[in-house]
């Protein structure tokens, strides 16, 4: 399947740092056949910030369900997790 912008999403995880965040999220992604294309992790203003670029081309679930799933996981660990199509970021920040 082609990997156009409609299948590429940006996932952000913002909150307090803790053991196992990346492991937990990676497992969810792997279980659903979602490929991680890029991952960065920084501490911005003392807040743990992880940004992942993920490819949903072969995903078992759609972005809406993934978003719900990750929100639940995030809430249990005091993390704010959002998934939004990369198209949105491109259109907003690039002419």
């Amino acid at each position, binding site marked *: 399947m082609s990997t156009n912008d409609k299948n590429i999403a940006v996932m952000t995880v913002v909150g307090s740092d803790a053991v196992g965040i990346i492991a937990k999220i990676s497992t969810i992604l792997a279980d659903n056949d979602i490929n991680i294309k890029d991952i960065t992790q920084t501490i911005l203003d003392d807040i743990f910030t992880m940004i992942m670029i993920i490819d949903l081309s072969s995903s078992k679930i759609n972005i809406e369900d993934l978003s719900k799933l990750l929100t639940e996981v995030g809430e249990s660990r005091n993390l*704010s997790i959002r998934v939004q199509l990369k198209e949105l970021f491109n259109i*907003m920040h690039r002419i």
Partner: protein
Amino acid sequence: MITDLEVLETIRMFQEQHLDVRTITMGINLMDCADENPERACTKIYDKITRYAENLVSVGEQISKDYQVPIINKRISVTPISIIAAASKVDNYVCFAKAMDAAAKACGVNFIGGFSALVNKGCTHSDEKLMASIPESLAQTDFVCSSLNLASSRTGINMDAVRSMGRIILETAELTKDRDAIGCAKLVVFANAPEDNPFMAGSFLGPGEPECEINVGISGPGVIKSALETVRGQDLGVVAETIKKSAFKITRVGELVAREASRRLNVPFGIIDLSLAPTPAIGDSIARILEEFGLEDCGAWGTTAALAMLNDAVKKGGTMASSFVGGLSGAFIPVSEDEGMIDVAKRGAINLEKLEAMTCVCSVGLDMVAIPGDTPAEIISGIIADEMAIGTFNNKTTAVRVIPVPGKGVGDMVHFGGLLGSAPIMHVNPSSCKAFIDRGGRIPAPIHSMKN
């Protein structure tokens, strides 16, 4: 590649700064629904609206889920009903409002606009019937919005209609007095009404518009406010640049949603309305942006200058971000729908006269202003006349949406609920303008209307 900071900026806009798309409005032409038999006309109107807008709400919700962008309202606008109903042999147009209301409910939208008439130069018989039917129509329906174009820079001001509307607004208030005169919150009068405006209550689909189109209203006062917080103390050129950049980004989101809605509904994309539309929620206020400029209160001296700059910078930034811009496009300054505005109105830090001055440089006019229920009809007409003059003589859109609340006086609060918010009753200068309004007739078009 998008940088981490850009990603986080976008995330914050949605998470903390209330960025949303305020409305996807589907405009539907009803010209082919005209019928001598009013019942048949109403059936055609209902059928056509429900056929065209059948998927509007579900598609809007799906786009919202796919992009994780809140889309607050899905709405419908139609051809001004006075044009459609003209063919029908009936004097009371309430049946048309009810058909619109039923169609809106069937489609699941929260407002339908177009119980309207364009009377900027004069009234047809049908326009007169529609105007007479407004109070009853707004009292007997839930979602119908009514608007009139009373003036234009090309034609001048129809002062006969201005006179009538003072009385009609009071009647509308009286018939909905059990709900704080909410009928008047669904009724707006314009000078230079845009024919593709997606925002209520003034949305209708003008006669020059296509069969069906998607118009999108953006929002985002919280984003502009947050951006300005980062440039405190810097000069006004920096402020203008900051607003332009934010407006560009906000508008791009609207453009994306509009294009996607147009594609999925197979309906042409009309315009993006580059408006800053506030809500009563904290952090979603135009008044607070103006205060961020360095004003103690919205309403202090300097407010008009700040608003002029804000309005202009939003347009400059937004125009670059969209292929088609239209509608009202500018900052709205409603009182009841803006948390900061409610606050300054309650404290008396702003008055109607200052609001009037601000309407010279914003996109609408005296909007969602609650006034005493015993305000005479001619004074309401006088308020309208002044606003119409500002729009007509300055080549811009202006509007009046005042709510004379029966049984309430200055300082009392009225609560409309939801996005319509709440407002204190504001003081109205009681000096009479009766003899002026009673003259009637037309105020001729300004000299600069003759551009040919």
